[in-house]
Structures are given as C-alpha cells and as structure tokens.
C-alpha cells in the first residue's frame, strides 16, 4: 500500500524553506489555472468539464492546446494528438526521477499523475534522496490543488483579476526553472547537451508544431562524452 511510513517521512522532511520554495512557484499555478477555466468556458466548455479536465489531465500546456484546437474548429483526434506530443517530455522525466517517487509500486503509479516540469526540476536540483522525495510530493500536491482551485474560480468567471502578464507571472515559470537548473550546469557534459539542445529548440520553434522543439533538444545528448560524469565536474 501507499505507506504511512512514506507519508510521515515526507511530512517530517518538508521544512519551512521547502514549503516556501514550492509555494513561490505554485502560487502562479492558481492564476494560470484561472485563465484556463475562463478560456475553456469562453470556448464553449461547460464548467464541470473544465474542472474534470484539470483534475484528470493536470498538464496545463496540453489543456490550453486541446481547447484551443477544438475552439478553432479542429477535429478531436488532432486536438488530442497535438496535446499528447506536448506531454511526451514527461516520459524521459519519469525515467530520470521515477525511482525517487516512492519505495513501492502503487506509490509510484499514483505519484505518476503529479509528475510535472516543476517537481522534476526540484528533484533534479536536490542531492539528498529523502528531501528530493518530499519535494516531489509537496510540489506535485501543491500544484495539483492550486491548479484545480484556479480552474474552478476561472470557470465561474473569477478571471476578472486581469491579465497574468500584467503581474509578470509569465516570467515566474522560466525564472524558477532556470534557478533550479543552474546547479546542474556545473557538469561540463550537461552544459554541452543543454546548450546544443537549447539552441536547436530556439531555432525550430517558429517552424514546427508546439512540443516538438523541446523533444528535438534531445539531439543535444549526442555531444555527451563517454567519460564518467564525476570526473567532468572537477573545475578546469
């Protein structure tokens, strides 16, 4: 079973700093969720279906994309496939951090639902496995709750707060991700892969469908050398 021992250890490990770090980013999820609710209702989705979407899909970008394509008169199959391409990056995320989610199979299966960009970045930035697990669940849980509350409020017309861009919230996501990725960039192999991958993604974004640029960034792995990573971290 999804054990009490795991839950207690996560609770114990989650100190004030951990909560503060997670909530600083998760707060934006409620406002973006509200804009999803508002846009989906405006596109003709009933309120209950907006809420179900955020609960069962729980992947912001793909939700916007599916609703956008359907609202523009696109077919449901095309809408779902385009949204799934956008979510394909979660597969390598799971391969990279999946072992840290839980000690048992059921915990890993349930925990998969809250695998998102943000908790993947939090976990990759953390060296201590116990703390990484706490970050995974606390960040995943906070984003899940706030994203869904935001959707509910936005769907009921609570989107009168204004444009998220006016508050600079669109800068919060890349800023948080960049801060979390920074420690990993001390490794030279990682820097090589990241720079080539990032350049490819930037160059092809105007040319290919959404989601594909990020996947093409994996070409950057071709420049990873065969030397053990531990030796590469030694400063030159």
């Amino acid at each position: 079973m999804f054990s009490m021992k795991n839950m207690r250890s996560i609770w114990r490990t989650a100190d004030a700093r951990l909560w503060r770090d997670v909530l600083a980013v998760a707060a934006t999820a409620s406002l973006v969720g509200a804009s999803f609710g508002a846009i989906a209702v405006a596109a003709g989705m009933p309120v209950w279906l907006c809420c179900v979407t955020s609960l069962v899909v729980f992947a912001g970008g793909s939700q916007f994309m599916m609703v956008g394509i359907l609202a523009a008169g696109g077919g449901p199959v095309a809408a779902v496939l385009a949204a799934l391409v956008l979510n394909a990056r979660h597969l390598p995320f799971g391969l990279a951090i999946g072992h840290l989610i839980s000690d048992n199979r059921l915990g890993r299966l349930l925990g998969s639902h809250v695998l998102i960009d943000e908790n993947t970045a939090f976990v990759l930035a953390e060296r201590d496995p116990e703390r990484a697990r706490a970050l995974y669940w606390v960040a995943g849980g906070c984003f899940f709750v706030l994203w869904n509350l935001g959707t509910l409020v936005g769907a009921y017309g609570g989107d009168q707060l204004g444009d998220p861009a006016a508050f600079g919230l669109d800068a919060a996501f890349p800023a948080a991700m960049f801060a979390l990725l920074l420690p990993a960039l001390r490794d030279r192999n990682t820097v090589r892969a990241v720079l080539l991958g990032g350049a490819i993604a930037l160059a092809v974004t105007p040319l290919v469908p959404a989601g594909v640029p990020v996947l093409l960034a994996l070409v950057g792995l071709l420049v990873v050398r065969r030397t053990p990573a531990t030796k590469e971290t030694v400063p030159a």
Partner: protein
Amino acid sequence: MSIWPVLALAGGTFAIRAVGPQIRDRVRLSERATVLMAIAATTLLFALTITATVYKGVGDFAGWSRIIAVVFAGFLAWRKVPFALVVIAAAATAALLRLLGLS
C-alpha cells in the same frame, strides 16, 4: 464539447507519465544510463525554459520584459539569492518593465 477528447488526453498523458517510473521499478540501469537520463531531463527542461522565455503562443516573440526579467533572475540565482525571492523578483521585474511601457 464532449468528454471523450478529455478522457483520451487524460489516459494518454497518464500512460506517458507512468511509463518512466514503472521502468525504473523493474530494470536496473547502469551508472552511465542513469547519468544520461538526468542529462536528458535537464536538457528538456532547459529547452522548455528558454523557449518559454523567448516565445509566447506558437512562435511569437514574447517581448523584452520577460527576457530581461528571466536574465535578471538568473543573475540573482547565480549570486545565491534564496529561490523564493528569485521567483518574486522575476515577476516584479517583468511587471515593472511593462508598467514603464516596454513590450
């Protein structure tokens, strides 16, 4: 709008998310494979970050406010400013620049 596309997207997304952790459960990866997985995830997240900094929507320029805010946040993170402050500073910078009329 029907529920079927929503359920299809939910099922597909959950499958994509569950595959990784289930494989890590059953297969013992070599040291090198583990390192490569971490580099792959970092590369994907970095590509996501940089495209989310420069573009909005499908390939439209996001404007200078966001880019300057993210670069400033990167500088603060490099100077070891606490994470929560970095995030707040980024949002405040972008908001302020827009208030001043920058795109």
